């Protein structure tokens, strides 16, 4: 839809906005139809589910085949320690064992791994074509699109912690749902239609508020989220995009996207993706799809390890130092200007969002302060009048 929208269409849109708003107030959603402008030509979404996209093959009955992991699932830190230092062996010393292992986790190197690391393989992966090429290392998406760049899938696809149903995925999801100030918001403005619009503005924020659940255990559209402008400046990104057949794409990709990923908060961790592209199917109630780009290797690795240290990450068998080597080995973008080493690895995040009303600071309901005296009221009125 062109910006040179006719007055008639705008008028109809406005009518729909009003009626949509009314329906929204009654039904809990912001507006009714996708092919008209949302109220105020803007719409917001809050992330309710977010995880690194890992394709897990299933058979006709929906049972997992693990075809993408022909060599099996990787061992974790606990298993690797037991391999290196079998029970019943010689007397162990901290400096040579536990402390040495922790040193490898916190100061990993890309040197050759002493353990077998099982990369995910096969023809299929979630993600997007980031470079416009179809290469031998690329995948095909489950719906048949070639050229999918997702080397992160190779690195984490056969680590239990990153697969659906694992402790890390479940814990992070649960903590994400049960805490505030940890969620990404996407606000679209200058929107004339959620079906086709060749020019929309995209802004991301960190949201401050809890999610709104519906009676069925899902998330209710029509809630509100205050944006965190006080502490969350790092999460504010601006970009442009377009909506094509109901799918939001970024044009061009965002240079950087930083989003919060926290557990009990005190770790205060984030992820960084460069060249971030949105591929989100929009409706008035939801936005679902992928954000793909190049995950910064160091940020990815540090973020997880700061959030989940060796004890916790052992539940889902992450071999941290081995994973780092794989990340560095498979990194395929954003070469360091001095060393030439790739600092980014192609990746995709699987995102589910629910529509919310995004409250900007000036639109927030202000904290109620003591009622001003008559004199103060008069002064304030006088000031307002003077303007």
């Amino acid at each position, binding site marked *: 839809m062109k910006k040179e929208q006719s007055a008639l269409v705008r008028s109809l849109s406005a009518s729909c906005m009003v009626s949509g708003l009314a329906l929204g107030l009654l039904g809990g959603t912001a507006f009714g139809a996708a092919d008209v402008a949302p109220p105020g030509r803007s719409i917001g979404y809050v992330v309710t589910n977010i995880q690194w996209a890992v394709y897990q093959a299933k058979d006709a009955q929906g049972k997992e085949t693990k075809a993408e992991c022909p060599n099996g699932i990787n061992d*974790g*830190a*606990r298993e690797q*320690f037991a391999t290196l230092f079998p*029970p019943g062996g010689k*007397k*162990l*010393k*901290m*400096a040579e*064992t*536990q*402390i*040495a*292992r*922790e*040193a*490898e986790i*916190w*100061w990993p190197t890309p040197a050759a791994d002493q353990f077998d690391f099982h990369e995910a393989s096969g023809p299929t992966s979630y993600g997007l074509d980031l470079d416009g090429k179809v290469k031998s290392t690329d995948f095909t998406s489950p719906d048949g699109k070639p050229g999918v760049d997702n080397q992160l899938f190779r690195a984490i696809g056969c680590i239990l912690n990153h697969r659906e149903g694992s402790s890390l995925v479940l814990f992070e999801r649960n903590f994400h749902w049960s*805490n*505030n*100030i*940890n969620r990404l918001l996407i606000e679209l403005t200058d929107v004339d239609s959620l079906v086709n619009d060749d020019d929309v503005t995209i802004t991301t924020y*960190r949201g401050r508020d809890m999610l709104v659940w519906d009676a069925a255990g899902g998330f209710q559209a029509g809630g509100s989220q205050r944006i965190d402008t*006080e*502490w*969350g*400046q*790092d*999460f*504010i*990104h*601006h970009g442009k995009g377009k909506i094509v057949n109901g799918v939001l794409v970024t044009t061009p990709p965002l240079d950087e996207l930083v989003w*919060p990923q*926290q557990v*009990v*908060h*005190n*770790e*205060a*961790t*984030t992820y960084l993706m460069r060249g971030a592209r949105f591929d989100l199917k929009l409706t008035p109630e939801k936005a679902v799809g992928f954000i793909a780009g190049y995950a910064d290797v*160091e*940020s990815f690795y*540090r973020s997880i390890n*700061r*959030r*989940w*240290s*060796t*004890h916790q990450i*052992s539940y889902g068998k992450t071999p941290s130092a081995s994973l780092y080597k794989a990340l560095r080995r498979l990194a395929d973008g954003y070469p*360091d200007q001095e060393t030439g080493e790739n*600092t980014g690895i192609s990746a995709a995040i699987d995102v589910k969002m629910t529509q919310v009303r995004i409250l900007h600071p000036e639109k927030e309901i202000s*904290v*109620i*302060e*003591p*009622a001003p005296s008559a004199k103060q009221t008069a002064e304030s009125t006088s000031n307002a009048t003077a303007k």
Partner: protein
Amino acid sequence: MNGSRTLGNDEVFGYARHAAAITKVTGRFSFQQRAAIFVRRRVMRILRNVLSISIGTIVAAIGVYAYAASGSTASFKEDYIREPLPPGFQVIVTELEGPIFADAQGKSFYYWPKKQLRNGDAGEVQGKPTCGFDVARETAGFLSPYPPGIELPEVDTRPSCAAAWPPVFASDDAKPVGKWTIVDRLDGRKQWAYDGWSLYTSFLDKKPGDVYGASQLFHHGETNVQRYPMRPAPNVPPQFSVQTTMLGRLVVLHDDWSVYTFDGDGRNKSNCEGACLDGWAPVLSAASARSVGEWSVFERTPGVKQWAFRGKPIYRHMGDSKIAALDGSDTPRWHNVYTQMAPEPPQGFTMKKTLMGLVLGDANQKTVYQYVCGDDAIDQLACDHPDAPQAYRFAVCGGGDPDKCIKAFPYLIAPVGAKSGNQVWGTMYIDPKTGKRATADKPGALNVWTFRARPVYTFAGYKGYGDRKPSDINAQSWGEFNGERNGYIALVYRDIFENFDAGIQVDLIN
């Protein structure tokens, strides 16, 4: 950072001149008092919008102290309930922890309550001291994934539990007094206990007022099964309690919700009426409650009584969504309540905004970290100070290499002769090759700032991953168990997240 820019010299010096002018007019004020003059929310907003994020950061940081400094609390010390003490024992009102029991030499008392860990429990139950003179030589395996039975580092020089935590022995003719009792040790000697908890001192404390052994601050001192300072009950009405925070001893309700005062109130008189009451709930007293110590009861309306502290009516903030919050103090003229303020950081430190709240920064606004560490032995000794084995720290800060450590996590260097003026902040000479204390004349020794007698650090990083801009806090929870067991934790003055405000102790992870 989006929306931010570097300040021009005119702006920087303009701000400094403004500050200097105010100081000149008002005389020499404390950091808190200066802050109270400068900071108001509207000013902050204007500064943020008109100048830059950086200025806003500085102002907001000062604002923390402004909130805290309301009502001239800076000069107060916490009152406590007097009770009979055994001969020679005393109460010392310490700078960070408030009133603490101590022996005749002023050595602070500690206790060690039992706590369940992943694979077992450690600590003591009431009446049964276990901290003895045998040296623990192996890990206990409390914390997976590593197995028990691994020989501890520097085991030949490792102190016993009782050497690190000297028991408060009782003489043969000692007599119980009130809550003070005498318990039998496994080695046959007698030991003082308070409220049933066996008492110890710390080998880290050297002079009266030192409380370096342990703290009630969250993420401070030793970890896992912590010791705590033993304190007399604060003299507050039963529906209140007091928590140790980085800003001071914070008054909260018994269930840890913050309370506030309002500048618009009179002495023992509330002016919060009408719409004000939608945002602020007076903390009412029982009809039979009586004034006690610094706490008074006044009648806000006929038949309805409200608590006041030091004459200021007390409220709850309806907008608080977490315990021990500082959020209400964002509203102009409203303040959190402290029995006493914590000492200021030394001159040259800054306060800055990060994604997790207000955090201490160095002069360049780089996040300041402390190192925390507790070993996995049955006696749960701390490894977070320079007298403990440094192998733990070297593993996480430099992969075992001290040279990498000092590049990635440089010590915060103190000017020669620098003094903090308090016992919480100080300086210490460190040999960076060993991480241990050094004498000033040792070649290569560094004079570093310390918090609670432990060095503090910044995070220069590795492979481009470090703290670059003021909002960065990239070494927060760097290390084992999110940094709580062996790692780095930022010095956070205001934590915006749930249940972690003001560094209050919340036991969520072991």
